Structure formats: structure tokens, C-alpha cells
């Protein structure tokens, strides 16, 4: 049939796009490894030390972050405290700034000349193992918190009510209801957080000191020494945990079907628990807000701590050094990435969710692969693959790399939305003599509006703050704002770096705020009859 021929052509084109933007660059990187003495590198002292460092620091950080996230998500979902929305917002604030600024926050607060260090006359150093742990927890906690909150929110309370009726003790309820329920999501969260931390170089670069991890080693080899071969080998090693997590996730995804109609929890009065919830949430909020307050202080005084007069010096210096132009780059990159990203992921998800077939299944899997590729690896493979091409050195390659890097999550959002819409809509259109395009425009798109806005926000926020993939690809003429943090830090201009972090936070907060406003308006109007139509 004609239409199925057209659909196949579109799917073919999309597969070619992914081949060129994901698979070929990765293969190019692997090919690069043939020039390296891989075995020699893998058993060399520095490599093994960095590997061990990475594993230990990631394991410790993961455990702490997930423990904290479990506690906090449980306290927010199962207590009667007020300001839950505000706390949830504060907890996820760290997701809006680059990981490197979490390291910087620690330096500003606890470094040799740090704010807190100064006030309390602390000794000891933030640099090294515990610095990385603190920064990594900060940066990965929101992700774990969001994942676990979601799970707890949709837990069914009826087994607990049944257990209460039968007189089963709280301790046994936990062992026989809560623990089995949480096992799988907990494992997913642990894997996700572990992967997130082990591939990050922002935090260890800032506060690692002599404690070198694999991503830092890779970053320095590639950026500092231009040793692409060695970088590729480390890249491959970093790809492994993400790949394992990805495979487990794909295997589990279909099995994981939460019972949809869950009876929500009726939380009983418990002064002690609510008190604990206030204290813990307050402390975590403070931990989140403290670095931001420090950035603000650092930015707005002339020279901390010697000259505490208010001044615009740091801001104007940052702008003199190109913050304005780089903000422009970032906004263009984020905007174009978001628009093309939303369009592309909608197109792909439409194909995979609403037109069945073998190609759709392949396309679905390929779309998820980007979930498994660390930005730092993607960046390096792009350098190797696109060098000498037309887009190399232009804004276009930064947009492309962000598009691919952040593709999987928005894709999954819209995939789920489209799969939930009635499967016969297009067939209805066909029997009524209305084309597929019209049905998409008039019926499907209007119902996907909220999801599309959420996807846009995701692409935008991440494009604004990412440093991992773009670090290898940006030039002076295309440099995004986030990379100024690294360079200001290298020039010991912490005040300017703090200002840049605030600037990114402000832009991202604005975009998030607009999205929240849009969604709340949409939700309200969804249940009101449409007067205009009559």
C-alpha cells in the first residue's frame, strides 16, 4: 500500500540519521583504539589507580545519595508536613546547574579560603575523596529523589490496610510488603545514580585534587594532551556500566507494569515523624541553598573576603570576557536543540508507538541507546568522526551532539503519551476520509501538548547546563556559557564562575517556571467544557 511505503521510507531515514549521529561516531572511536597499546594501558599504574578511585568514590556516593533520596522521598510522600511542593522544588534545584558548579560550591564554602571555613576556623581539606563524594551526592541526589518519589507516590496502600486488619506488625509489614515492592525500583535507581556519577568529570575536576578518577583522566588526556587514542580506551571503559544499566533497563521495562489504580495512602498523625521530616527537609534545603547563596555573595561583593563592598565588578568582568556572547550561544543552542529535539522525538515516537512493524521495534531500541552513552564519550567520538566536516566548529555540531545526548528521556515521555492514546484514531480518520496528517495535527498533537512542553523544558535545561559532550567540540566562536565555569575556574576567577552558575540557574528557573505555569493552566482547562466551540 502507498501509505505503508511512505511510513517505511520515513523510518528508514530516521534509522540513517541515528546511524550517522550515533553508531558511526562510536565505531570511529573504537577504530581509533587500534592505534593504542590497549593492554599496556589497562594494566598501567595510573589507569588502575584511577579505575579504583572511580569505583570506590562512585560506590560510596551512590549509597549516600540513594539513602538520602529514599529517606527524603519517603518523608515527603508519607508525612503530613506542609510546604511539600516547595521542598520538592528545592531538592531538585541542583539539577538546573552544571555538575561542575557543585564542586565549585564546595570550594567556595569549604575550600582553603571558603566561607564556612573562614567563619568556623575549620581545618582540613575539601579536596580529594570526600570532596568528590559531597559534590557527587549533591548532583545526583535530585535524580534519585525524583525516581523514588514517583515510585512511592503510586504505591498501593491496600496491602497495608489488609495487613493492619490482620494485625501484622509494622516491622513485618516492611519486610513483606515494602521491601519486595521497592526492590526493583531501588535497583534501577542505584544503577542510574551509579552511572551518572561514574561518568561525571565536573565534580572531581573541581574538588578531586590528587584523587584522580577515570573521567578526569580522559578529560585531561583529550583536552590537555590531545591523546585521542588513550581517551577512546577510557571512553570504552566508561561506556560499560551505562551499557549494563541500559540492557537491564530494556529487559525490565516491559515487565514493570505498575498497577494503575492504586489506593492512595491516608497518612496518620505522627508528631515525631513529621518533626523529623521538617528537620531533614530543612537541612537538605539548606545544603542546596547554601552554595547558591555563596555564589550570590561571591558575585556581588568586590573581593571576598578582603573587600566586602557591594559591587558589579565581577559581573562586568565576566561580561567583558565574553559572558554576553556565550550566553547568546547557549540560548541559540538550547532553543534550537529543544525545537528540533521535540520535533524529532515526536516523529520517531509517532512511528514507533503508532505504526507497528519490525522497523519500529529497531527504531525504538536505537532511540534508547543514547541513554547509555556518556556525554564525554559522545563528545570524543564526535571529534573523531566529524573532524573536517562542514559542521565541525560550528554551532550546528553542538546542537547535534546535545540533541543525541539528551534524546532518550524526552523520547520516552512522548512515546508513553502516544502509546496511551486510542490505537484506532488514524483508522477512524481513514474511514471518515480524513488524512493521517490531519489526525496528527487536530487530534494527536493537541492531546500531547503537556508532554511536548515537558520535553522542550528537558532539552532546554540540559542544553544550558551540559559541559560533558560540548567541552570537546566548542570553539571560541561557539562556546556555550556553561564552559566558562571551567575556564574561569582554571584562571582562578571563582567570582566570575559563580556568576555564570547563577546566570545558568536563572535562565533554567525561568524556563521551568514557564513550563509549570503552562501545565497548571492546561490541567485546569482540561476539565472545563469548551465554550468557544458552541
Amino acid at each position, binding site marked *: *500500500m502507498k501509505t505503508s511505503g511512505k511510513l517505511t521510507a520515513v523510518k528508514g531515514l530516521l534509522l540513517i540519521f541515528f546511524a550517522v549521529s550515533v553508531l558511526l561516531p562510536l565505531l570511529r572511536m573504537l577504530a581509533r583504539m587500534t592505534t593504542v597499546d590497549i593492554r599496556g594501558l589497562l594494566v598501567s599504574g595510573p589507569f588502575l589507580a584511577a579505575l579504583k578511585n572511580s569505583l570506590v568514590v562512585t560506590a560510596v556516593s551512590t549509597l549516600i545519595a540513594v539513602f538520602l533520596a529514599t529517606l527524603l522521598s519517603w518523608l515527603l510522600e508519607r508525612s503530613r508536613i506542609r510546604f511539600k511542593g516547595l521542598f520538592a522544588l528545592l531538592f531538585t534545584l541542583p539539577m538546573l546547574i552544571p555538575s561542575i558548579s557543585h564542586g565549585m560550591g564546595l570550594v567556595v564554602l569549604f575550600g582553603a579560603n571558603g566561607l564556612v571555613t573562614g567563619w568556623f576556623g575549620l581545618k582540613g581539606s575539601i579536596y580529594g575523596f570526600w570532596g568528590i563524594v559531597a559534590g557527587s551526592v549533591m548532583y545526583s541526589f535530585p535524580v534519585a529523589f525524583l525516581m523514588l518519589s514517583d515510585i512511592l507516590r503510586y504505591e498501593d496502600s491496600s496491602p497495608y490496610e489488609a495487613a493492619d486488619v490482620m494485625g501484622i506488625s509494622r516491622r513485618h509489614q516492611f519486610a513483606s510488603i515494602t521491601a519486595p515492592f521497592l526492590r526493583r525500583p531501588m535497583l534501577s535507581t542505584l544503577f542510574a545514580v551509579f552511572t551518572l556519577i561514574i561518568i561525571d568529570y565536573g565534580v572531581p575536576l573541581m574538588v578531586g585534587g590528587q584523587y584522580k578518577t577515570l573521567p578526569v583522566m580522559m578529560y585531561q588526556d583529550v583536552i590537555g594532551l590531545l591523546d585521542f587514542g588513550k581517551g577512546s580506551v577510557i571512553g570504552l571503559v566508561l561506556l560499560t556500566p551505562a551499557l549494563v544499566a541500559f540492557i537491564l533497563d530494556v529487559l525490565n521495562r516491559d515487565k514493570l507494569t505498575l498497577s494503575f489504580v492504586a489506593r492512595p495512602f491516608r497518612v496518620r498523625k505522627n508528631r515525631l515523624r513529621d518533626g523529623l521530616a521538617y528537620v531533614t527537609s530543612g537541612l537538605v534545603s539548606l545544603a542546596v541553598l547554601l552554595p547558591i547563596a555563596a555564589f550570590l555573595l561571591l558575585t556581588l561583593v568586590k573581593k571576598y573576603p578582603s573587600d566586602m563592598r557591594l559591587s558589579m565588578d565581577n559581573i562586568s568582568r565576566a561580561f567583558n570576557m565574553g559572558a554576553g556572547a556565550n550566553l547568546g550561544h547557549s540560548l541559540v543552542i538550547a532553543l534550537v536543540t529543544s525545537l528540533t529535539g521535540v520535533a524529532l522525538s515526536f516523529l520517531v515516537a509517532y512511528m514507533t508507538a503508532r505504526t507497528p512493524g519490525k522497523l519500529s521495534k529497531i527504531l525504538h531500541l536505537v532511540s534508547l541507546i543514547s541513554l547509555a552513552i556518556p556525554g564525554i564519550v559522545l563528545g570524543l567520538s564526535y571529534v573523531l568522526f566529524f573532524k573536517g566536516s562542514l559542521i565541525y566548529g560550528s554551532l550546528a555540531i553542538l546542537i547535534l551532539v546535545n540533541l543525541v545526548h539528551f534524546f532518550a528521556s524526552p523520547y520516552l515521555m512522548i512515546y508513553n503519551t502516544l502509546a496511551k492514546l486510542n490505537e484506532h484514531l488514524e483508522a477512524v480518520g481513514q*474511514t*471518515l476520509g*480524513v488524512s493521517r496528517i490531519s489526525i496528527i495535527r*487536530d487530534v494527536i498533537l493537541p492531546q500531547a501538548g503537556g508532554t511536548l512542553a515537558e520535553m522542550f523544558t528537558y532539552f532546554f535545561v540540559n542544553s544550558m547546563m551540559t559541559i560533558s559532550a560540548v567541552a570537546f567540540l566548542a570553539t571560541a566562536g561557539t562556546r556555550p556559557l556553561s564552559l566558562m565555569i571551567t575556564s574561569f575556574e582554571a584562571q582562578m576567577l571563582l567570582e566570575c564562575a559563580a556568576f555564570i552558575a547563577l546566570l545558568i540557574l536563572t535562565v533554567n528557573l525561568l524556563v521551568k517556571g514557564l513550563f509549570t505555569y503552562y501545565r497548571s493552566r492546561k490541567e485546569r482547562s482540561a476539565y472545563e467544557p469548551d465554550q468557544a*466551540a458552541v
Partner: protein
Amino acid sequence: MGKNKLTVEKLSKQFGTNEVLQNISFTVEEGEFLSILGPSGCGKTTLLRILLGLETAESGRIIKDGIDIAGLPPAQRGMGMVFQNYALFENMTVLGNVEYALKKRGGSKKARSTALELIERVGLSGHLSKKPRQLSGGQQQRVALARTLAVNPDIILLDEPMSALDVETRLALRSEILDLQKEFGSTIIYITHDQEEAFAMSDRIMVMHEGVIQQIDSPHKLMDQPANDYIRAFVIHNIQVKIDSLIRYSREAK
């Protein structure tokens, strides 16, 4: 009645090695109510999709009013379909759902008046500006019917239209559908797995099992002269059980 409206000749369809339809042949007369009765997976939905043109058959002919329509796109076959779970446009109002196709085909003023008439006819004039999720299941089904009738098809196909409704609504809708059929003079092909429904509504019933027509006859004849053991077991036995329980119920009620 009496004139051949639709003739299906030797229709076959395979999915991989699975023969979903094997040599299906039957005719439907103008103004007839034909039920296709069979358990899920017997090929009845596939048959409907092929008749509509949403799916193509490997072999066989579909002749409507003397013309082979197998090569025509769905909208040019003069058939309307009420889908399982209605497949309403959730973002549009009742009025929007019914007039959408008419507007798309041109003539927005005519579209509005036709749509309003149909909505009135199915008894939803008081719900014009409601969205589907604000309606009951039975009301949603009526919107789906009105939307299908809007493009004026002469054959209407219904795919298990009552499966999600409660008993009371089902009974009410049964007679409404029959009334609409009379009023519009439509020919109806009605898919169901509910024996009682098929017996209560149809002029003829076509019983399908594993891609093969087991028997196609009037309800009476099906009862009196079942063609094989399958009909006896699947159709008559089930009806018998229902009748028995009814009799017992009415005795106890006395």
C-alpha cells in the same frame, strides 16, 4: 430487503504462517442486520478491517452494489465504522467530534447543521460542549454512532460496540441502534462475542471459528438446524444456559 448489498468472495488472509481467514464467502442484503459471532481471535475483526480497507487480503473479492471495491481507499467505500472503545477525539467536544470530518470535507455551515441534527437524533443535544471524558460510556457510544453517521455511509460496521457497557445501557442501546438502522435505511454488520446480543438483534448470524465460517443463517434456523458440533456447543448451549437461568429466575420471582 432482497437486493444484494455486499458480496464477499473467497477472502483469505494470513499473518505469517497463521491463517486468519480461510476462503470466506458470504452476501449481505440491503437493509439487513448481520451479526458476526465468534470468540476473540476467530478472525472477525480482521474481516471487518479488510472490508473497510484498513487491511488488504491476500486473495478474494469484495463487491458492493455490483462494483469491486477491494482497490478503493477506506473513505470511498461508503462504509462507516464504530470502533471498539469508541476512539473518540478526546480533545474535541461532542459537537467537534461529530462535525470534524464534515468540516474537513468542506462546507462548514452545512457541517454544523448536519452535526446538530445527528446529535439531537442520538439524544445528546444537552451535551454539545462536553468533552468525551465527561460523558458516560453509553453517551460516548452515541457520539461515536453520530460521528459515523455524519459522513452518510450506507453500510455501518460495529466492532463489539457494547463490550464496555453495563447491562442496562446495553439493552437501551440495542433498540436505539435498531431504530437508527430503520431510520437511515443502513445495512449493518455487527461484530460480537455475545450470543444473546446476536440473537436478539440480527436478521442473520454468521458464526466464525478459527478463520472459517461455521454457519450463516437466521437465529431461528441456527437454533433448529445447527450445522455442526461447534454451533451446538458454542452458540446453542450458551443460549440454553441463559434461558434456563431466566426461567429459574422468573419461577423464584413468583
